[in-house]
């Protein structure tokens, strides 16, 4: 049997493709999801072994060294803390795009000056998307890791500059398709998108990160699919298309949850106005409560929904929240969690953080389920979330977040909000929820406050 047979190699690719699709299918339920990882790993191993059999490979030394080195770098990247998953994900988009871009560039210089028109057009797409995603993801990772300022940096004519850069790149790319012998122009379609990637992320603030990460995910997938066209590899086209589709769906989800339009998604968060609160926030009376009072209300409730936001993760309060969940559940209180799609720094991030704190996943409700449950809920406890609970999104046409899907916490009987002070949320918008009669403000650090509630419930009221 000939181990270098193209048929043998193609069969490994065929099986790998099937396993990749199965892998995503297994992800539809938490019960089978781990099989998905297994299927993906087997498919990947098969494809790599199949590739190593390729008769065209004459020198295995560098391949072997690179595979070992990549694995050594990969292990720590797979072991990061769960709060760091968003920046790890951004970094991996960056590495994926780097791989695609480098292979694209070297393919160009191998085939130059006789690059067929079709190859050149997909190659240009591969390199443009790849280098844009490379710097864009690097910037996003830097912002998430707080190595770069998180605050959005905007200047006049930003959209104009960005669109100009993009248009210029496309024109050069088209010129290269017609005149592939002009290899001297190739660095332009590498370099300008690198700049564009940086420019794209500069105006993005922390709260827009879930959308941007998903969008970069989609770009990374599409650039890999373009690479598949260049190399005529069906496996790569399919894997890239799956990744592209996944990133696309997630970015549309996120943009809906953030109240952003579709064009806003395609062009990143270009040109969104950072709305500031109009005028000073007027002093209005709020009702506040102590941990004892909060504990008494929670202990007397029969149905409680906890609404966690990124503030909870920042305060590292998830394990205290788990203790609260345990204590209340033991007393027979029905405790669930209502999770907004943009709670956290990437899609689904909050679910991972709560799962890490050992909260069962069937207690985590998405926005639709939570909203149908709120009217029958005795107490809603909001920890570190603000804008996603703001009823102005439903009622106030002048509010910048009007129309944004929110958690209708104000439909519950009592609302308790743990908050450091009365400062407005990320979007700088005042939250009318805080001034409602049914709302109690619990001022303090999330972790410490939840801790004192738990102490009250276990110590003070432990006689039941």
């Amino acid at each position, binding site marked *: 049997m000939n181990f270098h047979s193209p048929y043998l190699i193609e069969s490994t690719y065929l099986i790998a493709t099937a396993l*990749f699709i199965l892998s995503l299918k297994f992800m539809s339920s938490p019960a089978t999801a781990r099989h998905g990882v297994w299927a993906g790993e087997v498919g990947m191993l098969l494809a790599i072994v199949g590739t190593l059999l390729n008769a065209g490979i*004459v020198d295995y030394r560098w391949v072997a060294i690179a595979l070992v080195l990549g694995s050594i770098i990969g292990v720590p990247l797979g072991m990061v803390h769960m709060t760091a998953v968003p920046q790890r994900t951004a970094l991996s988009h960056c590495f*994926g795009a780097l791989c695609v871009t480098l*292979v694209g560039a070297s393919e160009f210089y191998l085939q130059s000056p006789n690059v067929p028109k079709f190859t050149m057009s997909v190659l240009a797409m591969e390199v443009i998307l790849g280098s844009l995603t490379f710097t864009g993801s690097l910037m996003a990772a830097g912002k998430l890791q707080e190595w770069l300022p998180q605050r959005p940096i905007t200047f006049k004519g930003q959209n104009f500059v960005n669109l100009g850069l993009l248009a210029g790149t496309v024109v050069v790319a088209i010129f290269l398709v017609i005149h592939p012998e002009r290899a001297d122009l190739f660095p332009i379609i590498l370099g300008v998108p690198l700049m564009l990637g940086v420019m794209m992320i500069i105006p993005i603030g922390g709260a827009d990160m879930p959308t941007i990460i998903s969008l970069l995910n989609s770009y990374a997938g599409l650039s890999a699919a373009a690479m598949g066209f260049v190399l005529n590899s069906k496996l790569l086209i399919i894997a890239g298309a799956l990744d592209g589709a996944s990133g696309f769906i997630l970015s549309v989800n996120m943009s809906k949850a953030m109240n952003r339009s579709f064009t806003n998604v395609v062009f990143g968060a270009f040109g969104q106005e950072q709305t500031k609160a109009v005028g000073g926030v007027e002093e209005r009376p709020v009702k506040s409560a102590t941990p004892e009072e909060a504990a008494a209300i929670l202990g007397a409730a029969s149905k409680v929904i906890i609404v966690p936001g990124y503030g909870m993760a920042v305060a590292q309060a998830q394990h205290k929240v788990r203790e609260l969940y345990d204590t209340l559940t033991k007393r027979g209180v029905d405790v669930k969690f209502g999770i907004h799609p943009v709670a956290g720094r990437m899609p689904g991030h909050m679910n991972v953080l709560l*799962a890490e704190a050992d909260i069962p996943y069937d207690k985590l409700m998405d926005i639709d389920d939570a909203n149908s449950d709120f009217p029958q809920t005795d107490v809603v406890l909001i920890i570190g979330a603000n804008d996603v609970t703001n009823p102005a999104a439903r009622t106030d046409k002048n509010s910048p977040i009007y129309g944004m899907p929110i958690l209708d916490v104000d439909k519950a009987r009592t609302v308790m909000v743990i908050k450091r002070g009365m400062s407005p949320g990320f979007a700088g918008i005042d939250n009318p929820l805080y001034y409602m009669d049914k709302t109690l403000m619990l001022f303090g650090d999330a972790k410490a406050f939840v801790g004192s509630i738990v102490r009250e419930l276990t110590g003070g009221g432990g006689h039941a």
Partner: protein
Amino acid sequence: MKFDLITDLYVFMLAAFIGFEVIRRITPLLHTPLMSLTNALDAIAVVGAIIMAGEHKTTLSTVLGTIAIVAATSNVVGGFLITDRMLKMFKSSRPQKP
């Protein structure tokens, strides 16, 4: 190398449809692990990099290919590892069915 543009476009289109249909059904609960998994799968670009580095046609292509393998392999290893670590944490409060 013969380019079969039309076949490749069909493949892309069908894969995109399958992707949309399969991924639409994935619960928001698992969107983070989903992204790290598709990330690992996307690193299949490593096969192109292996051929680029292994064919050893020019020094440039070997160097770029080698760096590309390192980048993609770290995604394969890191991506699968973190996905599995995350999924391991998702537990149900109901007793597991056998």
